[in-house]
């Protein structure tokens, strides 16, 4: 933490960044995002095991962008991958973000393409145990059981769109669910509308999801929604040998193709 404070102090003093997005003490033992703009505020930064939420989501927020690039972000391995993916999708440029990461008990600032990619490659996102359990559980189910499982889970959804808001890769100014001419996704949170929303979310994040789990952490009713995008990313990884978030120049998995893509179901 001391190292982080020193680094942050240095960055602000040299005016190398306009703001540092980091974690600070929240309420009831939670951590919350903080935006450090002055040297006095640097002491508010904390960095421990509770810091799991992906702060890259704020890089898309107009109010934060207004401070001006470069912006520093206190990053977990998932955040680094997100930033690489955002660069690949032309939402950020190299040099816009100073990525603060922990490596071997030191705090490093990554800026260059090579550093970011190397760190992303060497530090895969690790799922918490309950996610792995849930994935295994779903694997063992029959298709009917899976249908019941998801219908029960999705019935809780009241479409607050916390999953969308918390996702750093859901940056569209106009989401497909907000399009009403034509209305692709039913607005109402009834079974059909909820199903449509979640399948759309998963399809739009297929091959882009970093698997940070921010959507599941944000969901106020406890739906394990990350499982859908994790599955979508798994397919893309297995079928097209494509991993999002490790290459700053990678094209998008679903808007490219290979002539020899394999499938077994087309007649």
């Amino acid at each position, binding site marked *: 933490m001391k190292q982080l404070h020193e680094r942050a102090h240095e960055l602000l003093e040299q005016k190398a960044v306009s703001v540092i997005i980091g974690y600070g003490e*929240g*309420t*009831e033992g*939670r*951590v*919350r*995002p*903080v*935006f450090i703009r002055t040297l006095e505020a640097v002491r508010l930064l904390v960095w421990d095991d509770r810091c799991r*939420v992906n702060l890259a*989501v*704020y890089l898309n*927020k*107009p*109010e*934060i962008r207004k401070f001006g690039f470069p912006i520093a972000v206190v990053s977990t391995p998932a955040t680094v991958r997100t930033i690489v993916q955002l660069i690949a999708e032309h939402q950020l440029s190299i040099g816009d973000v100073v990525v603060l990461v922990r490596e071997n008990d030191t705090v490093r600032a990554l800026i260059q393409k090579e550093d970011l990619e190397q760190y992303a490659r060497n530090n895969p996102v690790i799922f918490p145990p309950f996610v792995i359990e849930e994935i295994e559980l779903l694997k063992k189910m029959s298709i009917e059981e899976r249908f019941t499982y998801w219908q029960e889970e999705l019935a*809780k959804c*009241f*479409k*607050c*769109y*916390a999953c*969308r*808001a*918390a996702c750093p890769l859901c940056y569209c100014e106009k989401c497909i669910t*907000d399009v009403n001419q034509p209305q692709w996704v*039913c*607005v*109402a*949170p*009834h079974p059909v509308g909820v199903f449509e929303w979640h399948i759309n979310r998963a399809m739009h994040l297929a091959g882009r999801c970093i698997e940070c789990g*921010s959507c599941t*952490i*944000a969901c*106020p*009713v*406890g739906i394990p929604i990350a499982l859908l995008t994790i599955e979508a990313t798994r397919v893309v990884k297995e079928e097209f040998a494509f991993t999002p978030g490790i290459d700053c120049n990678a094209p998008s998995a679903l808007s490219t193709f290979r002539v020899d893509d394999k499938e077994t179901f087309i007649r």
Partner: protein
Amino acid sequence: MSHRTFTITHENLLDVLTNTIAVGNRLVAPVRRGKKLFFRDVQEVQSIVFDFIQSDESPKDLVFPRVEPMLAHEYNAGNVYLIDFAEKLQPLPTILFGTRPCDAVALSLLIEFFNEGVGDPFVEQRAENLTIISIACTRADSYCFCTSVGVSPNDSRGSDVLLTPIDNDQYYGIVLTEKGNAFVKKGGDNFIPSEPKDVAQYIVTLREEFTPQEITQRLANAFNHPLWMDASLRCIGCGTCTYVCPLCSCFDIQDEGTQTKGVRLRCWDSCGFSLFTLHTSGHNPRHIQSERWRQRVMHKFSYIPQNRNLLGCVGCGRCSRLCPADMNLKEHLCTITKEMTEVKADR
């Protein structure tokens, strides 16, 4: 009324609830789904959760469901058929058990709001068939702030029966309305008449951080205060706070259907969304998140008090507990009342 106050043991209470289900009432009570606590229809009273501070979802959807069909229409062989759901609605007699007093207050205010003026047949009919049995709070956490917004942990407003847990696994209860009386009557001998008691010792004490007057006064001139931007920087703009709020009542009317038939639905909406105020022209009067956050706070603590002489908040703390970005409403209100320096109102 034969008696207004009574005691009942925990076991007998469960028996009474089992009976209410057996005679065809719908019982809605707090139950766990995974790690979360919801108000859901209960078949087995054993599944009811008693030991909690606050549920994750508010019980407001019992009177104001997240999707409410208002009318349906069908075009068939040159004729148009209309179904008015308000006329057909026949809500089941429902016992809402185990709400916190703040929720009962909230429900009564929500019902009052919808019934103002021309009234709302959906909310009205659901409310008529709803009996609310609330349980006073013996515990609270740091997110709770009911006492600061004029509600108390054993507030009796809105409840039909108010129970207070006392010693020896017993509850002390007060019957507050005719509907409550009917519920108690059906329970028969299980309810033991008792002298009115002072149960203050069992009720949690919660520090009053500010007063409703303070906050309303401060907000009157605060529209252009820089605080809104500072406070809402970490807000990610989801609708969690409004959807779990027992008093948020904004809705969106949606038409769904095909060429020949369709249905008109009333769905929840949230001032936290940018789409909420987006005009057809493309102009958005609240184009950044700080303006939407300001709207939520101002609506609850300034505009509603101006119109109805009450606050749009009961201090249940759900919005703060569930906020993904840890936007703590109590903390924000404390900042507004304690630290906010006056800013000249500009025109």
